């Protein structure tokens, strides 16, 4: 298993076509499932209850998964206590319980290597000067910010000396932004931030202030979801168009990822598609029957990652809606499946007695 894990980083992340990918993933996934089934008694109990036991040779379509909610309620781990390296916590919206993920050195190391390999294609494999579209407070202890904080910390290792573009009130710090772009005029820079903050704190606020900054040298990576922007009726296309017009940024990449599978992110290509790599994969399940959906059909996103050894998070059913668009044939040339995220299922439509708002 370890040999295979080492050699996987020698493979270009978007180079595996379907036949090879399926064979590789199938063996990785059944090994991981067996590994966790033998070492994590909670995982074993869950899989027995949800899937009536476990046939480890099953094909990927029938691979067992955990609903993402279990990480909010259970601390799942497949390693002895003395191998625990650190805990990662996430909290999405306030009031929700955070997920808690147990990492050992090996898993943390795989996550870092995987993220590096994945981002090399976007950032060119060198550490660029980095502008973080967030406040330094996001790295503080405040739990509400921890998801953002974790992402910033994780991506910061791909930049040099990160500069924070926003002040405590999430308003743009004009002096810093200007001097950042002045200082690095003719070379590529890495701009990172949450989709919503880039829209409100950069696009909207700088337009109100009527401030022009040329950011054409920026490679922009953003994530965190579209929910808040959907409320503002901003589409991914409109988002890109605005960044192009306002700041002259043309290298813009959305990414999809979650703390439960850190290091295994899905990055948007120039054709606007999120891509699976050799490290991960996506299946779509019907929201009612949980059966697999075909390309072009909407359903819940199931994410696979080959990195989780310390905790049983290699196959997770998310609460996000998505759609597979194709495989091996994206105009950008990357191999593997590509897909679109259609947002999170809303709790709002449910009827009942609670809440008088």
């Amino acid at each position, binding site marked *: 298993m370890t040999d295979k894990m080492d050699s996987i980083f020698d493979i270009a992340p978007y180079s595996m076509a379907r036949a090879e990918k399926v064979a590789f993933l199938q063996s990785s996934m059944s090994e991981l499932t067996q590994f966790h089934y033998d070492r994590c008694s909670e995982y074993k109990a869950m899989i027995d*209850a*949800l899937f009536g036991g476990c046939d480890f040779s099953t094909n990927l379509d029938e691979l067992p998964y955990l609903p993402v909610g*279990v990480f909010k309620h259970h601390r799942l781990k497949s390693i002895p206590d003395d191998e625990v390296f650190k805990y990662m916590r996430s909290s999405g919206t306030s009031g929700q319980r955070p997920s808690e993920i147990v990492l050992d050195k090996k898993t943390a190391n795989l996550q870092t290597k995987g993220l590096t390999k994945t981002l090399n294609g976007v950032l060119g494999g060198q550490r660029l000067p980095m502008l973080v579209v967030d406040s330094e407070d996001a790295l503080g202890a405040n739990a509400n910010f921890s998801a953002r904080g974790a992402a910033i910390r994780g991506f910061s290792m791909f930049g040099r000396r990160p500069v924070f573009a926003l002040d405590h009130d999430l308003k743009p710090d004009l002096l810093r932004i200007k001097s950042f772009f002045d200082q690095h005029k003719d070379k590529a820079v890495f701009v990172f931030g949450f989709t919503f903050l880039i829209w409100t704190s950069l696009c909207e606020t700088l337009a109100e202030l009527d401030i022009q900054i040329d950011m054409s040298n920026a490679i922009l990576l953003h994530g965190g979801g579209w929910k808040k922007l959907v409320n503002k009726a901003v589409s991914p296309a409109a988002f890109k168009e605005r960044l192009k017009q306002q700041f002259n940024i043309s290298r813009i990449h959305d990414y999809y990822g979650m703390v439960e599978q850190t290091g295994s992110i899905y990055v948007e290509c120039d054709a606007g598609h999120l891509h699976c790599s050799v490290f991960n994969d996506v299946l779509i399940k019907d929201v009612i029957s949980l059966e697999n959906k075909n390309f072009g059909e909407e359903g819940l996103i199931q994410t696979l990652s080959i990195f989780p050894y310390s905790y049983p998070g290699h196959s997770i059913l998310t609460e996000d809606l998505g759609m597979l668009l194709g495989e091996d044939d994206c105009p950008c040339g990357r191999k593997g499946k590509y897909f679109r995220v259609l947002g999170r*299922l809303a709790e709002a439509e449910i009827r009942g007695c609670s*809440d008088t708002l």
Partner: protein
Amino acid sequence: MTFQALNHSRIAGAESFDDLLKEGPRRIFDPMVVEMLSAFSKILMKDEAHAYPDVVSLGFFCRRANLSIVARRYTLNDAIRIGRGHSVHYTPSNVPLNFCYSMIAALLAGNSCVVRLSNKASVVTEFVVEKLNAILSRSEFEALRNRIFLFRSQADDKLNQALGDIADIRIIWGGDQTVRDIRKASLKPHAYDITFPDRYSICLIAAKEYLEENDKRGIATAFYNDTFVFDQNACSSPKAILWIGDQVSVSRAQELFWNQLDQQMRRKGYKCPASKTNEKLTKIAGLAVSGLEPRVSRSNMTGNVIVNTMPEALENADNFTGGGYFLQVQFEHLAALPVINDHRLQTVTHFGFAQTELEALVLSVPTKLSAERLVKIGNATAFDVIWDGYDLIGQMSKFVLVQ
């Protein structure tokens, strides 16, 4: 600050809030109130309302004949009973007509009513408000118009305090968090709250009697109405089924019961809310980790999930969820039921038991079921002025001794 000075939009009733404040209490089941509700009932029951089953139920409740049955419970005592004054109602967003029942109980108890409606407008709410306005604009009910004030507003501490300052009784629907939030606003010393916090409900079925029943489809329809009209998310929706009988009969009855329910869901074109799919799986995983041996079956057509588990699962309401998720547990006989002494247990819907058996469950020492309503399957959401253990007419009125 006064309520009048704060931002709100009037929906129905008194033209001016000051007019409402001038209103005093009336006696319970005041003839003009009964007259008005009976007229309200007539226009609610007209053909156009048939598209909305909950409007028809409301109309049915307000019939003169029904109101006189309700009133009979209160005629035994010869003391004079009148309202307490101004009632202030916070009503929930997701059970559209709840505001009406709350208001009607308060009116019948002799109070004037200030009712905050949810900001989520619904077709049914608009329909009923329009009819209420029509009734109140009739000259014969002019004297009642100023006793009602329906409004919408943002949730706001200042507004809550302004309403706390005028309330003689405050009725808070909407669950634990809402009760906590609204209670931050103080009341006058003599005033008090009637609260409806988070609750859950269960269902009790005698397997043998079920197997012998001819109208299994009727039971499925009744159970469906109890449950899925509010996505199994109302306090009165059953979250667990307790089956009484030997293992063989229970298994047989379960199979028929869930089959019938699935068919009913399909007849209604009902699919479980997709937003609950992940949570259901998470709940099953939680049961498994707790050693409660969940054995799961789910309908691929409707998304309904049935989980056979152990009695201990019933001890923790966290094991429940809505949107088509039922725990079920088998017991050989009623005496084998565990003691469920949980103030959150509201309704037990039942099939196949005698009145005396059910009463014995409540009256046994210790109480087997701390529920406040034991009603036949199909009546879980049927409103009564006895609700959640409150005698609403009693709680919202006062005795006056004249000697």
